[in-house]
């Protein structure tokens, strides 16, 4: 078991597993890797999969931090602007609300999907999936959640929002008195944590672990590389 081989921490249901390169379709053996190693396609040199060090605890840590920062980013405004005796506040919800109020409900909906729904789904989904996997467990619906995470990943655009924020600031700079708040730093931290959480674990590793957790059932100890 993995305790005797600390480097080979990636369990696999079928030890003779083969894989096909997603880029060129060449079939090749898919050996378990030591932590930090990367498997590349023998035909086209694409990355096939990689074993990131302490992947589960890293993903869990980042996802937990992301929960805290999500709450903070939604509880405090990013900035307040004071101009012409009017005061306005910016937040993720406020930005979508402004689009809605200005008669663009579809754009408001997209904004909510890209900056609120997708990042929150990623964070919550990762926690629900990865934290139990540390103990070799899979909670009910874990497969559906794993698929959902993969689907929503490209649509989580907080980092793009952040760039838009910087551009807007450069645009407004001379117009008004601007004050930054905790919400903004929480947003920056959230972007970092989401990137860390998603980058911390390999897609195939996640599915291999999930497969084993489901095979071993809720009340039995996981048996990696069962034979």
């Amino acid at each position: 078991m993995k305790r005797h081989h600390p480097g080979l921490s990636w369990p696999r249901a079928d030890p003779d597993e083969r894989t096909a390169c997603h880029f060129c379709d060449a079939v090749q053996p898919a050996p378990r890797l030591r932590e930090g190693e990367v498997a590349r396609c023998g035909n086209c040199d694409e990355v096939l999969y990689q074993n990131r060090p302490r992947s589960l605890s890293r993903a869990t840590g980042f996802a937990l931090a992301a929960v805290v920062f999500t709450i903070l980013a939604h509880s405090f405004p990013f900035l307040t602007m004071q101009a012409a005796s009017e005061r306005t506040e910016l937040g993720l919800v406020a930005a979508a609300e402004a689009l809605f109020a200005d008669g663009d409900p579809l754009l408001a909906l997209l904004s909510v999907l890209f900056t609120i729904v997708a990042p929150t789904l990623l964070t919550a989904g990762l926690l629900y999936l990865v934290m139990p996997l540390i103990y070799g467990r899979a909670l009910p619906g874990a497969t559906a959640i794993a698929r959902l995470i993969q689907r929503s990943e490209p649509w989580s655009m907080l980092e793009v929002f952040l760039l838009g924020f910087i551009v807007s600031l450069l645009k407004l700079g001379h117009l008004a008195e601007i004050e930054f708040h905790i919400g903004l730093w929480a947003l920056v931290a959230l972007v970092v944590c989401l990137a860390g959480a998603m980058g911390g674990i390999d897609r195939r590793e996640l599915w291999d672990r999930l497969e084993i957790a489901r095979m071993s059932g809720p009340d039995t100890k996981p048996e990696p590389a069962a034979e």
Partner: protein
Amino acid sequence: MSGVTPGAFAADRGLASCHCCGKLSPVELGRCPRCATPLHLRKPHSLTRTWALLVAAAVFYIPAMSLPVMRISGIGGGEESTILSGVVTFWQTGSYPVAIIIFTASVLIPILKVIALVWLCLAASGRASGSSRSLALTYHITELVGRWSMVDVFVVAILACLVQLGSVMTITPGPAALSFAAVVILTMFSAMSFDPRLLWDQRRNVRIPTH
């Protein structure tokens, strides 16, 4: 291409790697035994879908560029700005970083992305050529960079949220904002429906049914 013998490709053996979890299974199973995603040797109708979404994106690009992306109303009357006029204004007022960011994200990236996908589609159907390395690089850049085009839509949302100064100055989104979001979303879907394995099928001169 060293080290790969004929028949070393999954599709030749009737094996499909799952689009979702990557597991290799016989395509006759219909669904992936691990994650229940439908199995296909290649993404279904990959080229047709990629082309159709590209054309749709190109169509939406016209209103996105020609209509106003935001309206600025204030004491001095109203003013409308398109994406391009915004870039020009920034350049003239000396805000070079903003001008460059908006020009790159809103003009350069969408156009280059469409050109890149057209090239990939042509290469996959044998009507254009390219080294496997440059095609692979193009594919990865196309996948990574597309979402950043959404930055202008967020700028409009942020400005509309912040600049609500009653009679002094108010910014509201214009019709181009939604068209532009459509361009970004359509090109993202287009890149997702492209199957890079078709490039290798073309190279090997085999045709795998894509339904």
